[in-house]
């Protein structure tokens, strides 16, 4: 039996290679993701180790809590502790550390890294200790005067700044200013010009304290030990020296490294999981292709298998034979996929280097676990997908050898309807329970539900494949005559095959369509809010993290003649009960003129310095009414008891909690603004624009927008994410296109006689090719339309689930979906290229003579 199997495999090399591609692509995606994320992780691990290379201990405030991004929230400590620390025996160097953000403005007036989505514009106090300082000067000197700075070599190179250049730097902090500095030196970070593309600006320590924190306040004190002093001993001594200082803790250098690495891993996990989801989607699509290919080939080999049975092979032997073919395919595909994945990861790493995201040196990391996972998953997916066809092969009775090749029969309609409906219903339930039930497994429930829905629709597929193909192909006979008719009939003749082939495409298109619908709904929701609630004339917008606006801008703007109100929005984190929430600081007196939040009870002007406003649904779930007391915890000031003074309906602009600016200032260190809203005197809106613009220009991280531009900008941010998701789903779609090509190639092999006859009675080779193309287009459109139906359902369900999060408009992007349909047809055309060419090149006489 082994011999038969091996011979079979060799005889079908081509088919096995083609089938393998479906799994190769999925596995390489998975391997690539794992290798890339391990490589990046290890790179950052060593980066963190290097940064803290000379650090033996750190004195800092205790962490209050982790914010929504997982960052520890610590308040600042007194710089005066330095004097105590320096007296502790074993301390060689002790220096203050202050970190923040500062944007270097290039000669062209543009800020480096001010965009927000890329690497950040970091700022630090220059550390005079060469043991503790992670960078070293390659030109000039350390900042000695208050207006001197050191920047990283990469920034210096891109701006052509040299030692002595006068540079505008905008510090992004509560005390932030836009001022001119003299470049005193240029530094490198180890062997890299800058760490992973971040820009670095170093101020004299006392200047950094003033600009990035506040005078006398620092983030931490960094300590290098005398040679031979163990970290544990030093930490113990420091703790003794600092005993009695509340809220202060001492951490060893090693534990700081460990913390930072863990912190990075926690945040980076999202990236890995995000990519793995798409790899899994690709593998699922691949499994559909495998299932379909094995089903067709088993059907085509019914006679061969029956003959084996007739000459005495047992059922088990036939099963084993087909199973071994699947196993071989799985192994070959997984090994190739593994290799390609490692190559792709190395390529991507090189690409990051080209894009100036300079990852410090370090090889590609291929862990044994990655190899094991990729091989196991690839082989398992192939074998599982081929199980049903394998058992079908075993059910072939010996007598089938004597019959004509059996045509596929669709199993009893009602059985299929019941099974398909049941499976789909389970999927829908799981999806909805995940969306609306919440809980810690919500994400898995949604993903599982979506997968099961796809399976359910695939089971139902054969029932609708015939009428659907008839409908989709309806115009063809009228448009292109008999080739169109033949294409339509061919797409209808094997409903199971058509449907399984289309199902692979359905998954990719379903997810793409879903993302498109969700993005358009989210954009529509934002636009809706802006149209209805936005009352300001202008908005000074930023890109978020690392590029917020110093409060200085707000007061500069308020001074512009004709401006009635300029008011910033500050957003921070606080802990309510056991969870961390966003809180927004506003100026109650003027907020109503800038945007409406739909206050339903109480008044914002009553907020004062101990009040809080709560979104209605949050209030409901926490049983809060006007006058209730809510205990919240701020990182800087600890637990505060605030009184609920207002309840509001619109949370899109305000989030779940709102406090007055007075309360915000009292409880947060970072007083930068995320946005500044500007309202002109009545009728002055157009008039003040130029003056407002000239103020904003001094701060390259800010951009002046009116409501329309702000809407466009929000939509654009969505577009970027959506495009990334499209790119990642492309792999699943490519696999599905391969699936269509494989099915067509196998179908054409089956129809050799038919094609020979058509050619004999006068069909041109172009017409043969055209028929295959049109059949492919029908199949692809069937998959695309199925996918879009599911996409609309997914989109609708998610929008229903996110109503409370501010996404309350369900908007189907008609043009977007139309483009998807057109692309679906194009995929069909591409898939049929090779099979169509083969069919058109078939030798007429051989085709007729084939028995």
């Amino acid at each position, binding site marked *: 039996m082994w011999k038969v199997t091996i011979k079979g495999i060799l005889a079908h090399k081509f088919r096995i290679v083609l089938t393998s591609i479906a799994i190769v692509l999925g596995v390489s995606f998975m391997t690539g993701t794992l290798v890339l994320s391990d490589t990046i992780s290890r790179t950052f691990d060593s980066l963190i180790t290097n940064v803290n290379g000379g650090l033996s201990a750190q004195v800092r405030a205790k962490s209050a809590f982790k914010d929504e991004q997982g960052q520890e929230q610590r308040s600042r400590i007194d710089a005066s502790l330095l004097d105590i620390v320096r007296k502790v025996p074993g301390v060689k160097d002790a220096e203050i550390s202050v970190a923040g953000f500062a944007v270097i403005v290039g000669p062209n007036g543009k800020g480096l890294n001010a965009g927000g989505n890329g690497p950040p514009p970091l700022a630090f106090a220059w550390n005079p200790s060469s043991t503790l300082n992670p960078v070293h000067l390659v030109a000039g000197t350390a900042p000695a005067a208050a207006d001197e700075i050191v920047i990283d070599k990469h920034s210096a190179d891109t701006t052509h700044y040299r030692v002595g250049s006068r540079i505008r730097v905008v510090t992004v902090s509560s005390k932030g200013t836009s001022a001119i500095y003299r470049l005193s030196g240029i530094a490198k970070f180890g062997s890299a010009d800058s760490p992973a593309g971040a820009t670095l600006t170093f101020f004299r320590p006392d200047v950094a304290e003033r600009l990035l924190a506040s005078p006398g306040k620092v983030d931490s004190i960094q300590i290098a030990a005398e040679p031979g002093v163990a970290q544990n001993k030093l930490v113990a001594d420091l703790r003794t020296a600092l005993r009695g200082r509340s809220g202060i803790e001492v951490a060893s250098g090693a534990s700081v490294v460990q913390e930072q690495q863990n912190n990075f891993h926690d945040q980076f996990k999202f990236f890995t999981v995000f990519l793995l989801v798409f790899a899994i989607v690709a593998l699922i699509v691949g499994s559909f292709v495998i299932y379909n290919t094995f089903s067709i080939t088993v059907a085509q080999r019914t006679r061969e298998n029956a003959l084996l049975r007739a000459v005495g092979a047992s059922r088990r032997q036939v099963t084993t034979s087909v199973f071994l073919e699947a196993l071989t395919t799985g192994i070959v595909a997984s090994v190739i996929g593994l290799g390609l994945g490692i190559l792709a990861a190395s390529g991507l790493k090189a690409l990051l280097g080209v894009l100036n995201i300079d990852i410090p040196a370090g090889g590609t990391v291929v862990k044994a676990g990655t190899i094991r996972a990729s091989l196991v998953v690839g082989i398992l997916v192939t074998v599982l997908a081929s199980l049903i066809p394998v058992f079908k092969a075993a059910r072939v009775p010996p007598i089938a050898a004597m019959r004509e090749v059996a045509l596929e029969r669709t199993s009893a309609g009602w059985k299929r309807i019941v099974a398909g409906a049941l499976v789909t219903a389970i999927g829908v339930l799981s999806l909805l329970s995940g969306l609306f039930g919440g809980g810690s497994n919500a994400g898995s429930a949604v993903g599982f539900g979506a997968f099961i829905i796809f399976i359910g629709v695939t089971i139902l597929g054969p029932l609708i494949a015939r009428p659907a193909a008839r409908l989709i192909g309806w115009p063809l006979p009228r448009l292109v005559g*008999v080739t169109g*008719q033949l294409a339509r009939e061919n797409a*209808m003749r094997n409903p199971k095959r058509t449907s399984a082939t289309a199902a692979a495409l359905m998954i990719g298109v379903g997810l793409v369509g879903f993302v498109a619908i969700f993005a358009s709904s989210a954009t529509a929701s934002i636009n809706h809010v802006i149209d209805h609630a936005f009352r300001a004339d202008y908005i000074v917008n930023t890109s978020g993290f690392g590029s917020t606006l110093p409060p200085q801008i707000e007061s500069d703007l308020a001074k512009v003649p004709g401006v009635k109100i300029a008011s910033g929005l500050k957003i921070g984190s606080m802990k309510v009960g056991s969870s961390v929430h966003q809180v927004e600081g506003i100026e109650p007196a003027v907020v109503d003129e800038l945007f409406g939040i739909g206050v339903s009870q109480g008044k914002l002007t009553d907020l004062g310095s101990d009040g809080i406003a709560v979104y209605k649904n949050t209030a409901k779930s926490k049983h809060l009414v006007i006058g209730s007391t809510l205990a919240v915890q701020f990182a800087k000031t600890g637990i505060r008891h605030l009184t609920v003074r207002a309840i509001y309906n619109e949370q899109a602009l305000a989030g779940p909690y709102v406090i007055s600016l007075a309360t915000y200032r009292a409880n947060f260190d970072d007083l930068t603004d995320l946005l500044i809203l500007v309202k002109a005197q009545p009728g002055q809106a157009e008039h003040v624009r130029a003056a407002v613009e000239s103020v904003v220009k001094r701060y390259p991280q800010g951009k002046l927008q009116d409501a329309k531009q702000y809407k466009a900008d929000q939509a654009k941010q969505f577009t970027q994410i959506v495009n990334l998701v499209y790119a990642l789903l492309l792999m699943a779609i490519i696999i599905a296109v391969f699936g269509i090509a494989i099915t067509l190639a196998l179908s054409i092999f089956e129809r050799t006689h*038919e094609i020979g*006859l058509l050619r*004999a*009675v006068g*069909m*041109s080779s172009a017409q043969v090719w055209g028929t295959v193309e049109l059949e492919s287009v029908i199949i692809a459109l069937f998959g695309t339309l199925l996918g879009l139906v599911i996409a609309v359902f997914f989109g609708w369900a998610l929008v229903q689930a996110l109503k409370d999060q501010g996404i309350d408009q369900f908007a189907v992007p008609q043009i977007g979906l139309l483009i998807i349909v057109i692309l679906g047809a194009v995929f069909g055309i591409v898939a049929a290229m090779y099979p169509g060419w083969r069919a058109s090149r078939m030798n007429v006489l051989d085709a007729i003579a084939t028995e």
Partner: protein
Amino acid sequence: MTTTTQPRTPPTNAGVAARAIDASKVYGEGEAEVRALDHISVDFASGQFTAIMGPSGSGKSTLLHCLAGLDRLTEGQVVLGDLDITALHEKQMTRVRRDRLGFIFQTFNLIPTLTALENITLPMALAGSDPDQQWLEHVIDIVGLRSRLKHRPSELSGGQQQRVAVARALASRPEIVFADEPTGNVDSKAGAEILNFMAQVVRDAGQTIVMVTHDPVAAAHAGRVVFLADGKIVDECSDPTADSVLDLMRKLGG
């Protein structure tokens, strides 16, 4: 009855529909060389029903395929009417088959996804031309398929399927119909019907038919029989009967 080893000029009342001139077809090379056709020259008169007979491997099917533009000669020429098809490109050859020739094969004559009527009009549909309705109706009546036009091949008996094939071959009024063992796969009653239809269109409408067969009964429906052996024309006769063909076969075999 006349027998001769030389190709004869066809009857005087018609021109030549197809002609092979010094035609050779060689498969393989060197030791493995097989000469399927060996310098054959033969004419097929228009308006005549000609049968090509011969034992397996005699080259009769190869001759038909080459005459019909399905295969190419190694040497020599094929002329259909006034058109030399020997050097035509594949594209031109396809048009010739579509517009000027009709085909009936032993099996796999019909496209399973098309109805009987659609199969009959297939060559015209491929050309994008409209069938001659009157003639089409006539052909459908001759083969007696009027009640079966909407049926798919799988719903027809083997004999009915071959009748559809005959109708398809005749419907576009081709210059020549080539038939390769058209009755090889049906029972004798159905076979006789099919051969009668073919003979009838030759008689009534002056259709030219060239048919390959190994069945003397089938050959007896033809007006002329050409015998092939080892790639050469060895004999021929006019107005054959089953017995005369059998006699000739015995003579050639012995």
